[in-house]
């Protein structure tokens, strides 16, 4: 099967700024890929390269086998930019109809996508009466119109409330089931809610991770946090037994590698009545993201607390 996006060793330099360095990324038909990265990591630059607005200073990109920006490639791609302000004087329906015509989409498509993004009621109102989330959904509607084979969405969920965000991911799942590939950018893993097939992380223009979320979690191998609440007066002996740090006068907290988890848990259960409660927390998505985004430099903070009681 031919890849929809095939980027090979792409570098992009703006005068002094190296926006992208040696990035290789594939997107298969029907695949959803999330592109993550801090501000200025190069996400928008990669989108502009895929659209053919700018040419890479090194490497190559092809869109379904075509050169980016060629007529054939533009028929494949649909784009939702980071920021767009539609003409205030037009109604929502007119905006979508405009882009539908430019893409040569069928007339009925307009109503269908307005329905999908839940803008049917507001469709005949002027865009300047739309709320931020409605404008974002209108932008999504114009991207969806015309059944593109690749959706490029730059921070599509910014400005959406949690419900709309969930609805957005359902919509994305729906279009990708019908074979449309989705490449979307976002600032963090938690925002993504583990909804995409694959996650690619850019750090200062370099691709530092690319794989399914579970694989990235495995790769990061972040320590698991275990917090033990000791019975009254037993905190000292619990601490002496399992190590770690005392976080207050009743609890002990320790971090362990995934492989050590069961051994430590069985040791804790061996302490019997000295332990009142155990809490085990796997690394959060944000921690996994921070790991890749900072290249593991950041140490997980733990504090020692002196117990004066």
């Amino acid at each position, binding site marked *: 099967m031919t890849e929809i996006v095939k980027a090979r060793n792409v570098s992009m330099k703006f005068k002094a700024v190296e926006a992208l360095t040696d990035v290789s990324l594939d997107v298969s038909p029907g695949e959803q890929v999330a592109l993550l990265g801090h501000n200025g990591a190069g996400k928008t630059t990669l989108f502009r390269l895929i659209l053919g*607005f700018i040419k890479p200073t090194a490497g190559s990109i092809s869109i379904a086998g075509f050169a980016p920006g060629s007529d054939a490639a533009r028929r494949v791609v*649909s784009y939702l930019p980071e920021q*767009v302000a539609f*003409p205030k004087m037009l109604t929502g329906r007119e905006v979508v109809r405009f882009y539908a*015509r430019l893409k040569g989409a069928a007339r009925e498509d307009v109503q269908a996508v307005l329905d999908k993004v839940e803008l049917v009621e507001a469709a005949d109102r002027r865009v300047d009466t739309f709320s931020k989330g409605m404008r974002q959904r209108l932008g999504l509607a114009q991207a969806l119109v015309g059944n593109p084979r690749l959706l490029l969405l730059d921070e599509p969920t910014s400005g959406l409330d949690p419900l709309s965000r969930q609805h957005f991911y359902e919509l994305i799942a729906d279009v990708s089931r019908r074979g449309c590939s989705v490449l979307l950018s976002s600032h963090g893993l938690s925002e993504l809610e583990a909804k995409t097939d694959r996650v690619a992380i850019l750090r200062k223009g370099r691709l530092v991770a690319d794989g399914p979320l579970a694989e990235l979690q495995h790769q990061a191998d972040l320590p698991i946090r275990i917090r033990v609440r000791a019975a009254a007066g037993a905190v000292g002996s619990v601490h002496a037994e399992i190590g770690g740090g005392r976080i207050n006068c009743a609890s002990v907290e320790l971090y362990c590698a995934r492989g050590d988890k069961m051994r430590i848990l069985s040791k804790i259960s061996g302490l019997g009545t000295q332990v009142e409660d155990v809490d085990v927390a796997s690394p959060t998505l944000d921690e996994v993201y921070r790991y890749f985004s900072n290249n593991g430099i950041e140490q997980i903070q733990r504090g020692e607390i002196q117990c004066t009681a």
Partner: protein
Amino acid sequence: MHGVITIAATEIRIGLRNRWIILSSLILLAFALILVLLGSAPGGEVKTDAVTVVVASLSTLSVYLVPLIALLLSFDAIAGEIDRGTLQLVLASPVSRGSVLVGKFLGHVAVLAIAVSFGYGIAGLVAFFANGGGEAVALIGVGRLIASSTILGATFIAIGYIASASVRQTGTAAALAIAIWLFAVVLYDLALLGGLLASQDGFFARTVFPWLLVFNPADAFRLYNMSAIDALAVGSNLGGAGSALPLSGLASMLSPVAWTAIGLGLSTFILKRVRP
């Protein structure tokens, strides 16, 4: 082709919904009506020529107002869309950059034609009937004025696109548009006048000046309208330099038409290099 029509239709829709455009046609109408009233003030004697006199004054008004309206319509065309992010969407769709510009051009010219027809058409009819009818041929003069004003407007719309495609900020494009207007319709003529006064031997006046006059589309427009009115034998001194001109009559409209082509060609060339 599909894209051209879609873009043109949308520009017309935005232009008509934009109060600013309605305002501009009202301004044209207001100025025109004032001239009509002034023109018919003397009463009696000039009855048959009243409309023609009004057309003469309206064509002078056009030289200033029409380029201004045209530039205000067009300065935002590219820079504004870059600013708002919509150019990215248009260019991401399978429409050529040339079609984008031609579509906008057709739309903007249509908007301008509507404003001019509305303003001058009503004024012409008022002048016609206020003077108790008269020869219908005078109304042809109004039609000619509307048509030539639209061509003049088209020229400055195309020139405005050059300004709009060359910069990324709407504000800068606006400043550039005003500068173009100031130069083309005010400073240029002042400079020519200065040249005429300074040239004692008459070489400038005889050889260079006529070419410089038709070189400027606004002056060429004025020449065309004056010579058309001359043909109707009203105040034969209006078209002063008429006899020595390299292009006369309808041919002087070649200047705005050529400038339109240059404007569209150059702005397309620049737009092709824009990285949205």
